[in-house]
């Protein structure tokens, strides 16, 4: 076993051990470990030849597809740091992330060029765009290269050519929304990502024969790690683009004999709705997992019918450490509302405001300790300080998860609520401040306040309250229309209520608790 393993070492080892084994199935097309290794090497060599330096950032802005995998390992083999941007991201936020990360290369697709062309025009760090899809006419001065034009015929000896990274080097920036509005890049090192992949594989009880069905966006770390675990194990991943057409996912699942199904509550409620109309089963699945929001206990009986052979894993985590805890599947019936215990190799504490442990069954704030914890937020030291706490363990930072928890007498964790304002709509993180900023950017809007409203189907939905400048005749629909121009679709308020005045305190701060 190699010491100080880097993420890409897993691919190199898998390629040497079984080059013809299938690593990915994408819309029925099969790709081998040899394909992944060689295409990643092509990308890495190209980056290297174009002056990509160790530690440089490569931004990936592509929907779920084969090119995401080759781009991840391509950037890693070149000694770089990858970041995956949700393909639904619009121009302004894309421009922000590209500028914040100071990415030198963008790997993308013609299908989203209407968003990246204007974003790139505002950017000063990007040196080249590598893309798939129809030919893009040159715009501005930035070089454009097509994935298909990268052919260098690398061999396995080339793997060490491009980088002298060590495991403390960053491997990825994982952008996440926060309470302050601007997305932040969670810094993850090779060491933390390798450790986390191993811990996940261990508790999920996966092996080289696992076939992981993956249809949530790779920009979400839940999906990203399905790739990392697959390559770690020398297993296979089945890639879908979206759960919009579930029967398409089922067909892929059945054809590929997928054994692992990572979902979120909205996916499961859709499945249950479908099952109630016409029962069906997915018997090849032996592992089912849930994260992003609590899995309602009443879903579990139905999920056992749909997935009769699956172990069900309920879990909790945050991007800042990827995952915190999981419930052993054998306990799903007796501990249905718990999210279990710390993932292997890590520990958790529930502390009060003075950083002292609370008694069993008493509510406190969750703190997390382990090699999976982030290095910090990229170039945001103030915000990092709020999350990474010193002085509990000498010379060490532990992560404040910011959420409220209770631990029972047997050490089982129960999620009690967020202590920030983040809304979880359809399992996606929505920052009220980001939405409020979008509303404030509309001329005619005087005040805006955004809250989450509980919803049995979506978890929460996004609701906005707005007051207008005198003389403005903006309608709710027009306000939503302006939002979709700058926000991802899942962030757009489902309802916009126009009021004369928003409720305020004496010091003129909007009181959100008076809104519902």
């Amino acid at each position, binding site marked *: 076993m190699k010491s100080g393993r880097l993420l890409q070492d897993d691919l190199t080892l898998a390629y040497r051990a079984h080059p013809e084994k299938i690593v990915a199935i994408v819309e029925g097309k099969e790709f081998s470990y040899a394909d992944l290794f060689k295409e990643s090497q092509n990308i890495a060599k190209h980056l290297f030849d174009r002056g990509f330096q160790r530690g440089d950032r490569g931004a990936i802005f592509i929907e779920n597809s084969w090119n995401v995998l080759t781009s991840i390992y391509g950037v890693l083999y070149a000694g770089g740091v990858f970041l995956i941007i949700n393909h639904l991201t619009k121009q302004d936020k894309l421009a922000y992330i590209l500028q914040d990360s100071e990415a030198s290369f963008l790997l993308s697709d013609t*299908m989203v060029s209407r968003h990246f062309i204007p974003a790139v025009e505002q950017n000063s760090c990007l040196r080249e765009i590598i893309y798939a899809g129809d030919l893009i006419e040159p715009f501005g001065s930035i070089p454009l290269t097509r994935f298909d034009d990268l052919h260098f015929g690398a061999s396995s000896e080339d793997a060490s050519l491009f980088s002298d990274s060590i495991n403390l080097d960053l491997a990825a920036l994982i952008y996440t929304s926060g309470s302050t509005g601007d997305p932040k890049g969670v810094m993850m090192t090779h060491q933390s990502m390798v450790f986390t992949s191993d811990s996940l594989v261990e508790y999920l009880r996966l092996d080289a024969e696992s076939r992981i069905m993956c249809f949530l966006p790779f920009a979400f770390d839940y999906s990203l790690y399905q790739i990392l675990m697959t390559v770690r194990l020398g297993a296979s991943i089945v890639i879908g*683009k979206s759960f919009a057409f*579930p029967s398409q996912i089922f067909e892929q699942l059945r054809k590929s004999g997928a054994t692992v199904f990572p979902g979120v509550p909205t996916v499961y409620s859709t499945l249950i709705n479908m099952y109630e109309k016409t029962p069906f089963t997915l018997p090849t699945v032996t592992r089912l997992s849930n994260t992003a929001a609590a899995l309602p206990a009443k879903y579990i009986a139905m999920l056992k019918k749909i997935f009769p052979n699956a172990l069900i894993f309920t879990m909790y985590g945050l991007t800042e450490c990827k995952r915190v805890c999981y419930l052993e599947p054998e306990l799903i019936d007796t501990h249905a509302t718990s999210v279990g215990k710390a993932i292997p190799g890590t520990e958790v504490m529930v502390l009060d405001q003075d950083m002292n442990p609370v008694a069993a069954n008493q509510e406190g704030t969750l703190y997390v300790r382990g090699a999976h914890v982030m290095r910090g937020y990229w170039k945001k030291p103030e915000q990092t300080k709020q999350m990474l706490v010193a002085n509990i363990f000498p010379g060490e930072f532990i992560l404040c998860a910011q959420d409220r928890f209770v631990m029972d007498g047997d050490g089982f964790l129960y999620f009690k609520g967020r202590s920030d304002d983040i809304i979880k709509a359809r399992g996606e993180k929505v920052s009220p401040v980001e939405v409020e900023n979008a509303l404030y950017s509309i001329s005619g809007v005087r005040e805006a306040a955004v809250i989450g409203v509980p919803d049995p189907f979506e978890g929460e939905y996004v609701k906005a309250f707005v007051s207008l400048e005198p003389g403005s005749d903006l309608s709710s629909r027009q306000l939503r229309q302006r939002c979709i121009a700058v926000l991802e679709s899942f962030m757009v308020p489902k309802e916009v209520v126009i009021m004369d005045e928003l409720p305020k305190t004496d010091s003129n701060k909007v009181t959100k608790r008076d809104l519902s």
Partner: protein
Amino acid sequence: MDEKKIALRKFVLENYLFTEDEGALKDDDSFLDNGILDSMGVLELISFLEEELSTSVEGDEVTPDNLDSINKVLAFIETRSH
């Protein structure tokens, strides 16, 4: 233009593109590829077909071939009305 097409385009434009500009949506634009509908959107589209266009959609008919663009939805409605 057929009544059903008018109603369908209006539904998609108003609820997912938040515009009345007809140019924002071509009849063969893929909802999926253009990020116009996500999984919730597809369910809402199905409710719309069932409630407003008297077309029921069975579970196994929820496929991109049947529903992934204005033209495909119209063709699907046609086959169901015979």
